[in-house]
């Protein structure tokens, strides 16, 4: 009667899993709560924009006397974890993210601006809007909301990260890749200098990126807004951005 066994233990197993998840989240949360002046922020792994933003946040949190660490995750999972509270927030997302991920609160001072552009190796087409991508084999990074929304209905290939995206673009698996301009330039500079990969057309999307904290950290919103406003006003953010870009290009 082996076929009955799963049914017999189904409820127990589900209970066990729920308890395990609760236990793990509790343990994970407990880890973060052991030090009340420390936060772990989700970040998209191998994503250059987030790499720049990380440095800005390190300094901002330092100003409000918080230690910050980052959990590099796939793009979508980074956002999911931040929303579910597994991390304390997300490094940087576009405006409106809080409408779908309702547990996240934006710090309403942009920490970085980005431009979503189209990279290609062989396509020679003037692409100025999302519809221009129709009919092409498109690649985007999974979890990047603007490109996901923009290419909806075009059956894009979702790459795990920027490295993955440019790898398959270089191999010709996709014809065009939608990515952040700065991150793409860095990727080309680092790995595909002579590959022929280049930017075509004008940016399809341009938006400031905001830092998000989980609602449990809502007390950080005001001090962070204050310090980020100061850093923006003082040009500290722009300075850090340039420094990091240079570092990334030189790595």
């Amino acid at each position, binding site marked *: 009667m082996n*076929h*009955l066994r*799963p049914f017999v233990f189904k409820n127990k197993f589900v209970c066990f899993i729920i308890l395990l998840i609760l236990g*793990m989240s509790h343990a994970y949360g407990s880890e973060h709560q052991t030090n009340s002046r420390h936060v772990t922020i989700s970040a998209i792994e191998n994503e250059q924009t987030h790499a720049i933003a990380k440095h800005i946040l390190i300094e901002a949190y330092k100003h409000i006397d918080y230690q910050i660490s980052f*959990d590099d995750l*796939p793009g979508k999972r980074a956002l999911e974890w931040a929303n*579910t509270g597994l991390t304390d927030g997300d490094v940087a997302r576009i405006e409106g993210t809080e409408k779908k991920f309702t547990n996240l609160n934006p710090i309403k001072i942009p920490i970085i601006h980005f431009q979503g552009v189209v990279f290609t190796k062989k396509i020679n087409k003037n692409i100025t809007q999302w519809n221009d991508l129709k009919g092409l084999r498109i690649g985007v990074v*999974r979890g990047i909301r603007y490109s996901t929304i923009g290419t909806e209905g075009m059956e894009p290939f979702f790459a*795990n990260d920027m490295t993955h995206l440019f790898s398959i673009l270089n191999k010709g698996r996709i014809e065009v890749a939608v990515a952040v301009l700065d991150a793409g330039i860095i990727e080309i500079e680092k790995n595909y200098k002579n590959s022929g990969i280049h930017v075509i057309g004008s940016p399809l999307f341009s938006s400031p990126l905001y830092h998000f904290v989980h609602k449990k950290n809502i007390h950080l919103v005001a001090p962070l807004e204050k310090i980020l406003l100061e850093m923006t006003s003082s040009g500290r953010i722009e300075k850090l951005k340039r420094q990091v870009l240079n570092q990334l290009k030189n790595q």
Partner: protein
Amino acid sequence: MDKTDNTHDNLFISAFGKGRIGRRLVFATIIFSSFITLLTTSYQLYSDYKNDIAAIDGYFELIKDSYLESLTTSVWMYDEKQISTQLDGLIKIPDMEHLGIMAGDDHFWSSGSLRSKHKITHHFPLVFKHRNKEFQIGMLSATASLDKVYNRLIGKAFSILISNAVRAFFVSCFILFIFHLLVTRRLIRLSKMVENIDIKKYPIEIESKKSKRKKSIDEIDQVVYALGKTQQKLFESYEELKQSQDELFQIFTMSIDLICIANINTLTFVKVNPAFTDTLGFSEEELLSKSFLEFIHPDDVLATQRTVDEDLKAGKTVLHFENRYICKDGSYRWFRWVSQPLPEKGITYAIAHDITDLKKMEAQLNQAQKLESVGRLAGGVAHDFNNMLGVILGHTELALLQADENHELHDDLNEIQNAAKRSADITKQLLAFARKQTISPRQLDLNNTLESMLNMLRRLIGEDIELIWQPASDLWPVKMDPSQINQILANLCVNARDAISGVGKLTIETGRCTLDQEYCIEHPDCIPGDFVLLAVSDNGCGMDKDTLDNLFEPFFTTKEVGKGTGLGLATIYGIVKQNKGFILVNSEPGQGSTFKIYLPRLVADEDTDNCQLGGPGLSGGLV
């Protein structure tokens, strides 16, 4: 089709007919075969089921070992296309019906659909290791259909059962055919031959048709041999039984004792032998139609009923039980019973011996002993009394010599003398009864002696009574004192006269008679030998049984007081006994009386003729 084929077919049909061994054998074979088929099929199906389940478990293990990690990675990455691709690949695994991945509340991917009624579902947690920690990022639910397994098993079971049924049918037919050839055909032939066995005839050979090819002896041959032996023993037993039955039947029918089988519950005869009907005079139907209590003397019914209830119904053997049964002529006969009951069957076997004559002999013996003892007493007293009477008479005569007629004592002395003489007469009769009478026996021709007495007898009986004298010719002589003949006849004629009121008839006849042993057995008073018969008959009032029983007792009389001494017949009895003869009396109330006096023949020649009476109408009756 010839007769042989017909017979063969009939045998085959009868071998497979209802209740026949062949049919039962086939039925048992099919039942057993079906049972074994079911058992083996069940085991096989169970084994297949286990294998199929094990295979499905193997598929689950395959998913767990080979696909779970890549699926986990895809889910980690939220790579929906990859997830769908992997699920679509996994759904092609045999019997896999549905695969679903639940990652949080918002993310669910699935492949296939849940259609089956019976299924197995395994859940695999998707655990991803990140920063040296394991996170369960979702749950894979894999569901395999058991309906396909069951359908396969049902199809297989159907196939196995059909094939086994066909096989069982042909095997059963073959077994039936072989069994018919080897067993039932021979058994039927054997049974028909056994049916024709007549145990009254000498044993016949039971099975003569034996295959020439067959050399060994099988079980049926042994049965045939045993039946032959049994037939032989049966025949011998029958012969013995028949002989025994014949002997018992002869004993039953020829026995002079009464043999019967009686029902002790209904108290009726079940079977009686001819001696019963011969002795009692009733037919067998009459005896069997009534309760046997109805044939028993009323005085014996209670004792008989008690014996049946207390002894026979308790299973006790009854020995020497006596009772009386009525005969058809109204008389009763004494029987002495031996009875062996079988209470469980409610019957008893009984043999009755007719002891009526014995009873009579006993009564007569008692009477004789009584008379003998009375005679001895009377004789002793009479002898002494006679001596004293001699003294009285002597002295009375002497006294009369001294006292003439004028003497005042003369009349008194005469009275004394007369009384003494009458007393002497009585004493003389008592002495005669006691056989102590002084006699002078001599050879007599009874006819001559009687003829000389006829005139005296006619005067004695009077004119109203006719005296018929019927002397027999060639009468044997007897040796006797003539005065005793005189005493006998005088007493008998006086009694006859007194028994006849008014006109009557008195017959005196003589005859000669030879009594053999057989006659004497039936008449205990008699002695075998040649006798001269003196019979005196009258047509008077006759006597009842009580009178007959006490007839010869001294001083017993039916006459009025003063008219008889009661010594007449006692004197006759004594005289006859003194002369070694005997008396038979035949009398019934209103029918007159006959006294037959048998006097032994004086042996002068060896004549052995049977009884020859001088006149008609007289035949001896025994008292």
